[in-house]
């Protein structure tokens, strides 16, 4: 009961998490490509590998004590049922609005927005008083404006290469995105010393990374 479970987001965030975890003295002790749950080189920490969008749910319910997850997922998930004490600076990108190059907004109807992030898109357009239709998609956002499914897309942009390759341009940045350390509220209260220790270690590792770059 005293051990800690750390949830890691599969994919790009995992690739960038591992070097940071090493600085904290944690390395997976098992085949993380196949296994969903592996012990780590620290006896008191075990790791679970899950889809990024599921990390907040696991941590909120206490199925994991801590997690590493993108700010995009946290913003879309919403609510204040998690602590997010630290930005660990990895998997940096931005949430942006993009459209076909030379695009002009239609005047006679509502904008159609394709996105994997309906909540973020809704909040963004609502904040500027714009009523829009949101179309939830699960991938290949860039296609939607090309085939007339949507006027604009709201999506993560890292380099902008995919956008450019498909003839789209970034119209506006909504916010910067990077990964955060999140903590279950009950764990923070009941395993405080162990968790605070880990947060401090991540903070040091992040500071070192920033100095090195």
């Amino acid at each position: 009961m005293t051990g800690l479970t750390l949830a890691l987001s599969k994919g790009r965030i995992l690739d960038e998490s591992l070097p940071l975890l090493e600085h904290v003295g944690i390395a997976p002790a098992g085949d993380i490509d196949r296994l969903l749950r592996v012990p780590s080189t620290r006896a008191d920490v075990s790791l679970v590998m899950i889809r990024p969008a599921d990390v907040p749910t696991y941590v909120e319910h206490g199925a994991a004590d801590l997690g590493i997850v993108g700010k995009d997922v946290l913003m879309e998930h919403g609510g204040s049922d998690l602590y997010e004490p630290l930005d660990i600076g990895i998997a940096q990108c931005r949430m942006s609005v993009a459209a076909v190059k030379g695009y002009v907004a239609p005047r006679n109807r509502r904008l159609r927005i394709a996105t994997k992030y309906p909540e973020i898109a809704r909040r963004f357009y609502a904040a500027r008083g714009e009523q829009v239709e949101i179309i939830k998609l699960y991938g290949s956002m860039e296609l939607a404006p090309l085939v007339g499914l949507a006027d604009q897309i709201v999506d993560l942009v890292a380099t902008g290469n995919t956008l450019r390759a498909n003839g789209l341009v970034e119209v506006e940045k909504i916010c910067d995105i990077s990964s955060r350390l999140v903590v279950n509220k009950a764990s923070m209260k009941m395993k405080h010393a162990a968790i605070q220790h880990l947060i401090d270690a991540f903070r040091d590792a992040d500071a070192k990374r920033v100095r090195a770059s």
Partner: protein
Amino acid sequence: MAIKRWMLPDGMEEALPPVSWQLEDLRRKLLDHYRAARYELIFPPMIEHLDALLTGAGSDLEQQIFKFTDPASGRLLGLRADMTPQAARIAARRYADQDSVRLCYLGTVLRTSPDSQGGPRSPRQVGCELFGEPGIEADLEILRLMLDTIQLAGVANVHLDLGHVGIYRALASKLALDEDEQATLFDILQRKSHPDLAEFAASSQRLNGLAPTFSALIDLNGDVSVLERARHALVGADDGLADALATLQKAASALQAQFPTVPVHVDLAELRGLQYHTGLVFAAFVPGHGREIARGGRYDGVGHEFGRPRAATGFSADMNELIRLGA
């Protein structure tokens, strides 16, 4: 079609043997215990006028109430989502002539959305409220009853979390924040988000140089030594802050003396129920369960809303959950 007909709506709970008997046994034990502590039992109605249910309760509760119109009067009615405001109404109207009132209650409340994804929308709420006693002894009496309740349900390894909303209020009162900014700051503190606090401080000049103080507040959680750290970290604080820290210190010392085996955690940025709480707030946790299992605190402002200003403190818990955890 046949399957659909027998399914219960999401989050609606029913109790069947043996759990129903366990609930009944616990109900008897709890009410006997409260009665021995001289708490009066009340059975508030399932339905009240919406404005009465919302009095002094804050907008969080409004979204939680199932609402409909009374065909007889045309007024908006609500199904109770929390019995605390009902107890406050009864204390203010029926017991207005008494200096202090002790009430206990037990019954199902209904909520439009569960506290956690997939959770119950029909908790069996049990609780005690103590009106008219402003001192720390009243808070401790309620804390004791909360711990007794958990223990009688057979739930072991309880951890206590203590906070005091007066600390945040004392700091926030030094800032001229509009409603949106207050909501943003509140949300940031609830998530203990250092990165979002830094961003907020950069985008708005309203934090006036108090950004480092709020940043310190986020980290002021841990064992009781937090209170000592707070005295140094929250400099420039006024009397409200010193009072709050003194109250927390007294509560923590008393708890350690009376419940030496219960670990006490202090979290000065814990703002649960900020909308109506005014002083000491607390919650109980158990290992392996990601959320609090019982909660309470001081809410001295509510009596005023019902026309009888009076100190108040209380706790509540979900009996269904206690039974699940105690089994």
